[in-house]
């Protein structure tokens, strides 16, 4: 297998409308060469539309698409040299596995001997050499998707687009193929853009995750960044569980306080946070919270409240407590539980002030912050 280095992708002001529906509303995104980028977002948020625009199946109403150093808007899909893997495999049912894989090479009028060699090599990579002569319908779903992968990679594209390629497979097989796809990504060095609406899959697979919401990008960040420093409430809630307190922000002396119902909690003094915001949200991840018996002393660097245990759930290696306090519900994950609690126990719930994450409440809204991508001049058409 020749390792060819993937190319970068630049999307600038990419917009697509279908009648009254704005499927994509001026997306800006930079994907690094060789990166594994995941598009994550709820149904109808514009993930497939973005892939279709990059692949050339539909043309944008506005914006630019640059792959490598090529401007792609207006270039028909068969001249783009981009591999695409579809959710339902899209294998040609009338061709055998090897002919499916040879298809893009024959379209490029490659010499017979080279076709045979390259098909052999890529089938080796996806581990299907022994099934080369089968017809697609004689393969399992997982095997079919491997063939589709091989077919999309055999012509050495510099970019591979995968639209929910594992959506039709059962959980076990999906997990196997996730690792397989990661391995292939490492092996071939091509830039991968992978669409999913499964957050766990996104965490397993990616270098970076682009969170889509309603035709716009909510946040683009590494998995850990996205989990530990989500910028919007939407991003925080889409990836992982979270405790959310909403309400107005106030400045009290040199402290920043969020008033949520009867509860007032201190929030990390984010340098430029605007205390005049009348609705903000504080996100605290369940494993950042701490539960101790009622009456336990609390450190001044913590927020705390008194709560009642509603439920105790064992989740394999950890224990999840469901609590109620100050009229709100809280989830707490404990990796190494110290005390036993039962329904009805009164406890002290606390978290370090700096474990809280202040996020933007409004979907699609942007809070300027340090990790925002450098703003590039939006090109106009």
């Amino acid at each position: 297998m020749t390792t060819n280095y993937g190319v970068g992708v630049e999307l600038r002001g990419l917009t697509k409308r279908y009648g009254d529906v704005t499927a994509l509303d001026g997306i800006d995104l930079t994907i690094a060469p060789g990166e594994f980028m995941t598009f994550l977002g709820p149904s109808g948020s514009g993930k497939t539309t973005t892939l279709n625009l990059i692949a050339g199946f539909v043309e944008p109403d506005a914006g630019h698409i640059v792959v490598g150093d090529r401007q792609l808007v207006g270039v028909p899909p068969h001249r783009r040299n981009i591999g695409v893997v579809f959710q339902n495999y899209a294998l040609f049912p009338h061709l055998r596995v090897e002919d499916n894989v040879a298809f893009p090479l024959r379209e490029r009028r490659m010499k017979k001997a080279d076709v045979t060699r390259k098909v052999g090599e890529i089938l080796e990579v996806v581990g299907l050499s022994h099934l080369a002569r089968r017809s697609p319908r004689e393969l399992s779903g997982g095997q079919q998707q491997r063939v589709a992968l091989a077919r999309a990679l055999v012509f050495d594209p510099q970019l591979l687009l995968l639209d929910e390629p594992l959506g039709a497979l059962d959980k076990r097989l999906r997990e196997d193929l996730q690792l397989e796809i990661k391995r292939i990504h490492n092996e071939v060095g091509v830039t991968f853009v992978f669409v999913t609406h499964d957050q766990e899959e996104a965490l397993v697979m990616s270098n970076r995750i682009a969170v889509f919401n309603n035709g716009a990008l909510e946040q683009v960040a590494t998995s850990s960044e996205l989990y530990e420093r989500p910028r919007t409430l939407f991003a925080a809630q889409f990836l992982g569980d979270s405790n959310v307190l909403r309400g107005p922000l106030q400045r009290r002396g040199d402290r920043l306080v969020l008033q949520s119902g009867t509860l007032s909690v201190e929030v990390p003094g984010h340098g430029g946070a605007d205390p005049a915001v009348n609705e903000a949200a504080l996100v605290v991840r369940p494993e950042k919270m701490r539960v101790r018996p009622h009456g336990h002393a609390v450190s001044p660097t913590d927020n705390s409240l008194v709560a009642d245990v509603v439920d105790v759930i064992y989740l394999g290696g950890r224990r999840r407590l469901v609590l109620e306090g100050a009229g709100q519900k809280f989830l707490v994950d404990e990796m190494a539980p110290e005390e036993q609690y039962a329904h009805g126990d009164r406890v002290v719930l606390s978290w370090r002030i700096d474990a809280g994450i202040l996020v933007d409440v409004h979907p699609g809204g942007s809070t300027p912050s340090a990790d925002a991508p450098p703003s590039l001049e939006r090109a106009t058409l």
Partner: protein
Amino acid sequence: MSAASRRGILSRSVLRVWCVLVGLLLVLPTLVVVPISFSDRRSLMLPRGFSLQWYVNFFQDPQWYGAALLTLRVGVVVAVIATALGTMAAMALHSALGQWRGPARAFLMAPMIVPGVITAIGIFYVALKTGLTQSYWGFVLAHTVLAIPFVVVTVTASLAGFDGQLVKAAASLGAGPVSAFRKVMLPLIAPGVVTGALFAFLTSFDEAIVSIFLSGPFAQTLPVKIYASVTQTFDPTVAAASTLLLTVTTVVLILFGVLSVVRERR
């Protein structure tokens, strides 16, 4: 054996007998021409002895075999043209056209629905104006109009089961529109296309109404010649001609049957 299953078998055999009866009712009147064509008598009556004289007559009389040849030549070319045009029309109806899809389909189907005589009068009028009566291309054009709906119907049915993603996949793999059609779409809708071609051929092959208008002493298709012969003479050659027509039609229908069995298997 239980009463229920006995009743089941009984009703099934009644059904079978009924089907055979209906089948015979449909086919027998047509098959009457077969024994007559082998008759040794000189009029249109059931034979006393066996003879091939009417077949000999058919292949020696230029009026008869000329008509047969013309019909075949027209039929084959109609099948080719109607299949090409009908397939393209079906693809357009399948993929695009938006709000025009319904009207466009109705327009294409019209020749199948409008009474034959009315279509014939229209075509006759146009043919007179353009000098296409009694000409090879006159028959071809007229029959093509009549045959296109059959191709549209069969190809549309094939396209309904065709996964449009395959064309996208082909494009992403480097196949231009023509290549994608030839290597991916056509092989997969081939059953509908071939069926359409067979129907188009048959439509032209046994078409009589429009052909009567377009025919004349210098150009007659076989169905027209048969009609003329029956109405004007008692020559049993017409039975031989009819039997030949019947044979060709049956062969095409059997081809069609074989094709659909093959399709089922796949």
